[in-house]
Structure formats: C-alpha cells, structure tokens
C-alpha cells in the first residue's frame, strides 16, 4: 500500500482578508436559513386563511404587533437580499461578471438594492393601508 500523499490543503478561512464578496456569501447562506424558518409564517398564513375568521384574526394580530412587524420586515429584507444575491450567483454560473470591477459592482448592487427595495415595499404596504 503506498503512503498517503500529502496533497496541498486550502488554508483556513481566517487567513484571508475579509472582503465584501466573502461577507455577503455568508449573509446569503444566513438569509437562506432565515427564510427556511420563515416558511412557517407562509404556512401559518395559508392555514389560517383556510381555517376561518378566528384563526385569521390571530395571525393578523401577530402581524400587526411590533414584534410581528419586525419579523416581517426582516423576512422581507432576507427574501429580497437572497433573491438579488441569488441572481448574482446565476450570472456567475453563466461565467459572466468575474472581472474585479463587475464582481464588486454586482455585490454592491445586491446589498444596496435589497435595502432600497425592502424600504420601497414597506412604503407600498403602508400606502395600501396594510400598516393599519
């Protein structure tokens, strides 16, 4: 049996300087996990609507409370960020956007776009009377 070959190993993550693309890669995963838990809200909403007025009123009371609003706002941002960041990965999957400038631009666009879009969506929510 030949001896195990000592192949070169990738250095640990801590040896790299933190970059925006690295940080947002972690955030992409974190928002994915948050959305995983957040699907319970989606299911609660659909089941409450299917169950009847009492169940739906309970959901609306939660959605209207400050903690409910905070969770829904966070959920909205996680969804929008994961969406925009995911589109960025789809572009990279097609082997476009790997130049340093393009790469940084895409990453900034995903972050700033997610914040702007989330605020716009919530302005729309309040404008349509959902905030009452």
């Amino acid at each position, binding site marked *: *049996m030949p001896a*195990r070959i000592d192949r070169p190993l990738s250095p640990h993550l801590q040896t790299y300087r933190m970059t925006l693309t690295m940080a947002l890669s972690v955030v992409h*995963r974190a928002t*994915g*996990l948050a*959305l*995983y838990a957040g*699907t*319970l809200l*989606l*299911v609660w909403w*659909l*089941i*409450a*609507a*299917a169950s*009847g*007025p009492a*169940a*739906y*009123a309970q959901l609306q009371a939660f959605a209207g409370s400050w903690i409910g609003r905070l969770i829904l706002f966070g959920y909205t941002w996680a*969804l929008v960020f994961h*969406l925009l960041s*995911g*589109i960025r990965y*789809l572009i990279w*999957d097609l082997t476009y956007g790997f130049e340093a400038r393009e790469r940084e631009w895409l990453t900034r666009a995903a972050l700033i776009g997610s914040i702007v879009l989330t605020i716009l*969506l919530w302005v*729309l*929510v309040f404008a*349509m*009377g*959902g905030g*009452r």
Partner: protein
Amino acid sequence: MNTDTRSSMRTPMSRVRRLGTAKSGTGDFWRQRLTAVAMVLLIVPMIAIVMMLLGRNQAGAAQILGSPLIAIITLLFVIASCWHMKIGVQVVIEDYVHTENLKLALIMANTFFSIAVALAAIYAIFKLSSGV
C-alpha cells in the same frame, strides 16, 4: 466521510467519479438553479398577491387565495421554494456536520420538515380553492 481508503483496492478518485460520494451526481445542483429561476419569475406575482390581501379579513383573503390563477401561482411558488430550501439546507448540513450519523439524521429531519411545510401549504391552498 469515508476515510478507510487503505483497506480498499479502489482509489479515492474512483470513489468520486460518476455519481460521486453523494450518489446523486449533479442533480441537486441543477434543481437548485431550476427552482431559483422559477422563483425569480414567480416573486413579482407573489408580492402582488400578498399586497392584494393587506387589510382584508378572512373572508376576503380566502376568496382571493382560492381563485384559480392565484391558487396556481401560490402552489408553484410553494413547491419551488420548499424544493429549493430542502436542497440548500442539505448543502449547509453536509458542509458543517461531519459526524456521519448526526449528518444522516439532520438530512432526514430537513427532508421531513421541507415536505411537511410543502404539504401543509398545498393542503391549505386546495382547501381554499374548493371553498370548504
């Protein structure tokens, strides 16, 4: 992780060729992108549906959610998102959990959770659609 390469005539390379150690090839990689693109297409109608429901009571919400086009869009979104999150969280588990039995248990739990969430949502949509 299988580390007893010494006791086998098979080389490490032959273990990972074809379907690889996960025994399912690149199927999950492809389906992760397929469901991602599906949700990119479905997210705008989904946001519109949620906006339509703001401020409505259960009767109004049930009527909207049970209408054919909206029910179908919601069904497609639920199926795409549950499939996507099942694959995504499995990747996270495979990346960070290296104890074989714990990993298998978590992958199973993840699959159970994803299927349960999907079926609960599908059940609710069918119930709303049949108006009972």
